[in-house]
């Protein structure tokens, strides 16, 4: 395991081009500070988010993944963020079965005007992931003969949620 005291979470963020990427732009233009632990990838729409991207990110060393799109009803392509929402909900369930705490995946609706909020939510997310600790998923799975362990308690919670 990595040295806990030195742990700096790596968060990958997928943002849509129209609202959330611009929210990040606005945070920048307004010089609002947030932790450097997030690195963004721009998609045209959150609907472009292939669940594989998230899994690849975790596999590649991300400790958390942020998905950000326009607010419901405000997607530049009308309703594609709803389709992403479905994938997101499914993904969370899947993560639990793979032994990944679902809180490592966060969904954020952010409009182009919400630079401050974007920064705030990113800060929160980084702290959440920091408290969860490093993921090191690929290593854990490898050492377990390629098997993931389901997170039992959380799995139950999710069912009742």
């Amino acid at each position, binding site marked *: 395991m990595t040295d806990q005291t030195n742990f700096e979470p790596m968060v990958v963020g997928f943002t849509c081009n129209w609202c959330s990427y611009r929210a990040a732009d606005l945070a920048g233009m307004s010089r609002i500070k947030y932790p450097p632990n997030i690195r*963004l990838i721009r998609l045209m729409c959150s609907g472009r*988010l292939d669940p594989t991207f998230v899994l690849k990110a975790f596999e590649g060393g991300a400790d958390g993944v942020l998905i950000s799109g326009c607010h419901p009803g405000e997607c530049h392509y009308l309703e594609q963020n709803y389709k992403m929402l479905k994938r997101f909900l499914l993904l969370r369930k899947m993560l639990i079965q793979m032994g990944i705490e679902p809180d490592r995946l966060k969904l954020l609706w952010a409009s182009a005007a919400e630079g401050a909020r974007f920064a705030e939510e990113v800060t929160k997310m980084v702290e959440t992931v920091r408290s969860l600790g490093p993921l090191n998923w690929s290593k854990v799975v490898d050492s377990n003969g390629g098997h993931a362990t389901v997170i039992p308690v959380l799995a139950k919670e999710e069912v009742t949620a």
Partner: protein
Amino acid sequence: MTEERIGVYVCHCGTNIAGTVDVEEVSKWAGEKLKKDGVVVSRDYKFMCSSLGQELIQADIKEKSLNRVVVAACSPHLHEKTFRTACQKADMNPYLCEMVSIREQVSWVHTDKRVATEKAKALISGGVLRVAKDEPLEAIHVPINPATLIVGAGIAGIQAALEIADSGFPVYLVERDSSIGGHMAQFDKTFPTLDCAACILTPKMVDAGDHPNITLLTLSEIEQVDGYVGNFTVTIRKGARYVKEDVCTGCGICIEKCPIKVIDTNFEAGLGYRKAIYRNFPQAIPKYPAIDTEHCTYFLHGKCKACQLFCPTQPNSIDFEQQDEVIRIEVGNIILATGYDLFNSRRIPQYGYGRLANVFTSLEFERMCNAAGPTEGRVFLRDGITQPKTVGIIHCVGSRDKHYNNYCSVICCMQSLKFAHLVKERTGAEVYEFYIDMRTAFKDYDEFYQRVLQEGVNFIRGRVAEATDAARLPGEEGKLIIQAEDTLIGKQRRIPVDMVILSAGLEPRADSEEVAKKFGISCSSNGFFIEKHPKLDPISTLTEGIFIAGACQGPKDIPASVTQGAAAAARVLGRIQSKELALEPIRASVIEERCSGCRICNDLCPFNAITFNEELNVTNINQALCQGCGTCVAACPSGAISGTQFSDEQILAQLDGILSLPINSGKVKTLESVPA
């Protein structure tokens, strides 16, 4: 396949980036460490976007035969086009140029130079890996329908309509009210020149009404907007007027004969009356009256028909059977000029509007001053006969106040000064202005302030606590007392007055969110429409082909609204003249050999671009309808749909790149131990 030859260009942006990111180090690092990924040259420069910066890239493309370029600078939303065009000029396919945002996403939001530098490296590494997967593309050209839709016929909308129509292209001017002119038609004088609003507006209204290239649709609302830039199909509901526009001469006899009088809360701001068949004012455009079915005796009780009886036209112009009409039009561009709503002064109970008779709103006062208004331009108290001897004007009502609106409504200071002048001119009354700050920027505005100062108006600097009729001191009996802290002398003051005018702020239209949704644009947190860029492109929106002008974008006075109307028109005209528009070639397409015909993607497209070919058992995507969101690309279980510019390969390569450096590598300083 030719090998990748990538150039990396790191911008200092003055100190904007260089202040927080060690740009020289980043550029050196990219040149060495990313050599294996195809980087052949890496440079840093003060301002990459300057012509010298661009020439630097172009020279490298030529001399070092680069075939891909990564520019690490500001957000791609600012300069992607600049750099792509530069590359294109050097004969490189523009879509092989990528931008990495190390200003908005790094230097402006982080403080620790070492960590920021490492993040910049990681992002650049993502950009380099991604650009290697980029494919050369051609822009998509769409034809532009020369017709334009303008929503809202206030001064901004009218100006835009006239500019376009005068250039010879068709315009549909849609207005919700029964006549055009917007708020400006309600005013008497305009600041700072004090010329009469009607005198300068009515000629424009007449022009718009008569123009052979303008189709005027009043009492109309937009129901639906389909399509995309160049080819919008818009569904409009034209409300029934119950007057036949093709026969009515606008003689006005029906209005005279109508027995029903109702308080006009719309145009006269509740100060005057109109009939159940009405037009807003005598010079209204269009000239045809409209029937208000909520008050018309015929619609309520089935009898009367006085208007029809007295109508002199042949055939009769009154048509009680008229129905709403649904009209469908095709346009290439759309300008929204939907204006503002006045702040509802009742929301501030301590100012007494609606409770204390002699508290007036700014709009009420405008109507009172208007020679064609309910008092024929005379300033009276609510009783309609007494002239005020003292008048208090309160600025910033509903503006610059965290309980209501944080923003400054821009026009209120000048409007209040104008009111002070008019009160003095018409009644000779003593006037007190209560202001927070006096904002008289723009041409001739401050001169007007000086003039009003010289006219002997009293100015008290301080936010008003309340306006009340509870007298406490001698001389306050029967008066309205304005209580405020005079911040210049640091004392509480109570000023007894006969009349209070509330200079109410401007708010976004109550339905602005709904309208924005219809047109696929967005509103800022205070509800005004968001422009593409606050400084460099205030009239465009993020949605191609949709423009905004006037107060729907933010509080604005008349000159600024006119300017924006004309600017939006100029932009549209440019589009029309060039006949076609180049769009980003971001589209999805099906690789037929891989498509299994599962049809999972078939329901995902909101633009109906996806169809299924039963015969071949494969899905097709119509390139003209596809907007490039990529939802189907993400959904295809066989990987049979590819999305240009955002392909799986590109995104996953970028992901690899940004994950290649750990967050704390800067602190731990063991760069070499970083996993490749």
